């Protein structure tokens, strides 16, 4: 079976908002690719375009120009509904503010992408996932009954539930204390190893960046740095 070397391929990505005098170019001609199993951190000052980039990689927004291929599929050649289906199967999201569905319990939140696909979840895998996340005794709890760290672990679980091609995390530790932040980061790294996931993480935290396989640096909407293990590419 053919598998592309690179699970993410961004080519000439640009995104602008507004018109004429109010024109803001959030992203200018960004191209890069990420092979499977890599743990990538995107860093940059606020307003540098890193969130916009992440949203475009996840198919949440539409680029003004350029293309994104995930697992060989041109994301923006798909129709909106196809893109939603693609998202639940191939992309896992983790947000800074957890964004769990308040009416669903831990297990249901984690299984949500599968349920949306009208699919019976692989019970053994879900259990393994929940245990790995340390939520074994919180299975039936509602998000409002969990601490911030626990909620973010549920969000990680949701992102991994469908064994997606990529996991995109937007400041996943931003709302957590350092111990919980540490834990979340370890789990993400574990996911890369155990489930052979590709993880793209946005962070201000240079400590997190330091633990990444690769760091992409953004400034004024441009990709200004790309280093692996501290080595500039």
């Amino acid at each position, binding site marked *: 079976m053919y598998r592309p070397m690179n699970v993410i391929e961004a080519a000439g990505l640009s995104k602008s908002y507004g018109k004429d005098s109010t024109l803001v170019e959030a992203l200018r001609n960004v191209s890069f690719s990420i092979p499977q199993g890599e743990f990538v951190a995107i860093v940059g000052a606020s307003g540098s375009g890193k969130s916009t980039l992440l949203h475009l990689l996840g198919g*949440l927004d539409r680029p003004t120009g350029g293309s994104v291929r995930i697992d060989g599929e041109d994301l923006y050649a798909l129709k909106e509904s196809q893109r939603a289906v693609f*998202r639940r199967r191939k*992309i896992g999201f983790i*947000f800074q503010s957890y964004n769990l569905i308040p009416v669903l319990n831990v297990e249901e939140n984690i299984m949500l*992408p599968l349920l949306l696909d*009208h699919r019976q979840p692989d019970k053994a895998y879900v259990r393994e996932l929940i245990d790995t996340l340390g939520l074994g005794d919180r299975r039936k709890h*509602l998000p409002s009954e969990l601490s911030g760290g626990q909620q973010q672990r549920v969000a990680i679980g949701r992102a991994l539930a469908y064994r997606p091609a990529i996991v995109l995390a937007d400041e996943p530790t931003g709302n957590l204390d350092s111990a919980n932040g540490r834990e979340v980061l370890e789990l993400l790294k574990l996911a890369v190893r155990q489930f052979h996931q590709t993880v793209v993480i946005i962070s201000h935290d240079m400590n997190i960046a330091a633990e990444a396989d690769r760091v992409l640096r953004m400034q004024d909407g441009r990709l200004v740095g790309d280093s692996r293990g501290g080595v500039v590419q």
Partner: protein
Amino acid sequence: MNGYGALAGKYLKQQKRRTVLTVVGILLSVALISALGTMGQSMKDNMVDQTIYNNGAYEIRYTVATPELLQTLQHHALIEKAGAIRKGEATPLAKGYSLELAQATTAGLELAPVHLLKGRLPAADGEAVIEEWALAQLPGTPTIGGKAELARPDGTKQTYSIVGILNNQRNNMTYGMGSAYTWLDDEAALATVPDTRLSAAATFKKGVDISAHLPEFEQLSPESFDTNTQLLALKGETADKSLNKTLIVIFGVLIGLVVLSTIAVIYNAFNIAVLERMRHFGLLRTIGATPGQLRGIVFREAGLLALYGVPAGLIVGCGGLWLVLEAMSAAGFNILTFDGFKLTLHVWIIAGSAVVGLLAVMLAAWLPARKASRVAPVDAVRGTGSIVRETYKRVRLPSLLRLLGIEGNMASKNIRRNRSKFRITAFSIVVSITLFIVFHYFAQEAFKVAVDDSRDDQVAFQMLSSFTQAEQGQRDGPVQDLFDAATVADIAAIPGVEHIYGRYNLPEASIYLPTAKLSREFLEKMGEDFFLKSTLGGQEIGIVPAYTTLYDEERLKQAQPYLVAGTADPAKLSETGAVLIVQKVKPIVFSEKKKINMNLSELKVGDTIALNFGTQEKPVMREARVGGILSQAPFTPTLLDSELYVIGTKQTYAALLKGIPFDEASYGTALRGLDIALADGADAAPVRQALQAMAAQDPSIRLIDFVEEQREQRQFNLQMKIFIYGFLGVIALIGSLNIINTVQTNLMLRRREFGVLQAVGMTMSQLRRMATLEGVWFGVIGAFWGLLLGIGISFLLYRQLNNVEGIPFSFPIAGAVISCVFALGVGLLSVQGPLRKIAKASVVEELREEA
């Protein structure tokens, strides 16, 4: 910006759409309340005017009065005005008509139902006013300024000069007895020797508690004392005040429901406005706004909205009503059959509506204001997650929605996610549906009471043969039909004529009914010895008055829909000599102070009834079999008090009357008149012309024209419908606003959540399905409780109505179905707007939504 309070106006300006929606909600509610109140009060005012027009302005009356009694009244401290009328002697006119001239004092003329068409009232002996139609029958057909020789009450003739013409009265026309008045001097009234023709009438001074003093006036002459019951009832001055209490309860419930739904509409609008701005309120708190100031801002917003909505509502309510009435008048309608309906604006109704509207707004703003004031400043600056603290409830109740896949499953959880939110949403829908059902039910019942839907209201012309002429030379043989088949056929051939029903004059009869066949309920309510008792063939019987009526084939056709048992087939009835009966009656039950609808007897098809066409002393007994039972007589709008309808064909009655001497059955089964019904929408003018020509040829035929009256009746029905459906339309609008507001609130507050769902891969169509299911399910839940409450309150109103008019409770099925379908439809449609908005916005925007 002169102060922090100006923030309120700025928020409202920013949220134009919602502001307009809320103002419209307030406007509609205030309009509805003021229009309902004004319409109700105007109807009452006009009913008073109309009652005075029909019955006279007197409050008490003595049908037989002595000069002393009259004098007592005239000098009584409580009496405003007392007048006397002396009944006249009939003056025979052409074609069997006659005219009765009464004498009346000046006050007597004011208190009696005397209505000038032209000219003036008599002010001297020798002057007279005469009814218009009767004037045409006087020799030489005089007019104002002319002379007529009429009989005085003492029987002597006198020539009067005619100074005025009176309006025609229907009853007088039907009986062929016109009325006329001449003047009676007060002194002369007092001086006359006592005679039974003198009657006295009086009104009380303003402010007198009439009902408290009635017994005292009754004592003056108990056997001839009488009140203008209808007028006193309308003025709230009856010994039995249940009518007014009923009206207050009914209008109170309706207005209460309108107020509740107003509160729900406004509460929802405020709630969403406050929830959406929680972060702003939090920020205001961080820069030093006190909770009281935040409350103030919300109340100030409410006040601003009321400032626009309340006056606009009053203008729209009263103005709209005025416009509708003006348009109806301009289109040639008589408003609700009142001659010259006047719309009276009462300050207390307008002020009351304004106060009620304002209170509703403030009450509705109270909870959101409290919510705004309770926001913690730290929540605003922390900027994490939802600033609105919701408590989520674990749902254990199984719901049918769960069968509908993940979307249904999530919808069911979302609906019950927050107890208070769920209650408020359900509450608004329930109130709307309840209001609709109750109003629809009430309007329907009121319509039933007010509208004559019997076949009788289709009769446009009556042709009667005057009795005296036809009787001549017919004393001995059987009486011939006074209209031959050829005449009937001629009339039937006139274009526009739909039915011709025969009129007959059957002799009176009573039924000797075995006591066992009388209904227990009737005897228990009306008294065991309500009917005279006797025995027949050794069996105890009650003597029940019979209402004998002959139905020709045309009439029997109309009876078919009312048949509850047996047959109404003329051939079968004639063949077996059987009759149709109506045993349902509606007497006033004194012990319960109301009319009650019940069976008088418990006869069954096949039973035999004994009819007495003679007197009790000299009975002429006949037997008839019950061939069929009707629920109501098709040509009588109301049920009888305590008589049994006995309807038979010509052959049946001919057999029954055989051998009965002429004096007991003067006219036998002879056809004596025709009721002519026109097709719907047929032009009456050519029919009238043709009938007039026929009547002119035969001096014994009298033609009576009901077209005008019928037209008024139909207009009345149409107008009732316009008002009812107008009010229902406004109620439906308020209800829709309510549902739209609540369902949309629920969606718009969850945009971020929808963003997340989309981010994790929910497609727009799945989202749409989930939201639509939520909207519809709220409709279902609201409909369920709304039905229960609506039907319950309808039943309560029915109990009130039942105090006045005994009617059976009819399940408000139409209102229930309409409102539920409507609620579901609106629930379904109201989610479409927010969904479109969500579909248009990018997921990223939704994720940034603050809520």
